[in-house]
């Protein structure tokens, strides 16, 4: 008789990132969107205006601020794609394919962001 042992679930890892991302989306994202809207309205230049070139150069060149920005983007990607994956069940799609698309996409976006930020950081300083 084969023993059916309970298998540990990997869901807590994703749920933890979902919870952290939900906090980021609720607490930090509104002000980031306000900044992006103001930047769009203000049409910043190389050194004047909100989100101008030199300001963003300083943001991405500072290791602490760059790491915080990466954390925000990373958490947002996993949060939103986790939530969208679970919403597909509500719409009647029960396929593992969406699991790979959601978490694969989130991991890909996170690695792309990390790579870009590291490239920019080491190019600058």
């Amino acid at each position, binding site marked *: 008789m*084969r023993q*059916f*042992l309970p*298998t540990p679930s990997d869901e807590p890892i994703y749920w933890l990132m979902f919870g952290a*991302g*939900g*906090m980021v*989306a*609720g*607490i*930090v*994202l*509104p*002000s*980031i*969107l*306000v*900044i*992006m*809207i103001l*930047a*769009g*309205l203000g*049409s910043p*230049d*190389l050194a*004047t205006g*909100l*989100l101008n*070139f*030199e*300001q*963003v*150069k*300083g*943001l*991405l060149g500072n290791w602490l601020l760059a790491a915080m*920005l990466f954390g*925000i*983007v990373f958490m*947002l*990607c996993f*949060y*939103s794609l*986790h*939530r*969208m994956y679970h*919403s597909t069940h*509500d*719409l*009647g799609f*029960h396929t593992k394919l969406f699991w790979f698309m959601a978490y694969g996409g989130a991991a890909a*976006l996170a690695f792309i*962001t990390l790579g*870009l*930020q590291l*490239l*920019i950081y080491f*190019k*600058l300083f």
Partner: protein
Amino acid sequence: MSEAKSFRKPYKRPVDKLWWLKNKFFTVYMIREGTAVTALFAALEIILGIFLFGLCNLDAETATAETAAPYLWWVQDFLGNPLVIILNLVCLAASLFHAVTWFNLMPKAVRLFMNKNSTELLPDYIVKMGLYGALAGATVVILVFAVATI
């Protein structure tokens, strides 16, 4: 993973794709889930901005309109596009709606006890007030920091 081969063939009931429009409660629920799409859009905007910043010539001694052209396109033409501004406003509204619903469910998800010797829970409004305070504080800190570092 279990090595046992599964012979399960679960019955999947056909679902009307618009079931959530028939009840107001479910409609609000689906809008709440839909705020994830706008959060992803905001993340993609930021990633696009980082990517286009990386395309700029960062070795130049002094940045000119030519060396910083990709980033200036993102910040002036992309973020300045009326459609993107409207989408960003929708994202902002969705993000605030998400914040309200998220803070409302947080006392149910995180159960904080008054002290070690009782099973009495911390009142809901204290947890919610803490989260709204965090939202207000983070917004003020980020906006002041963004304006101060221009």
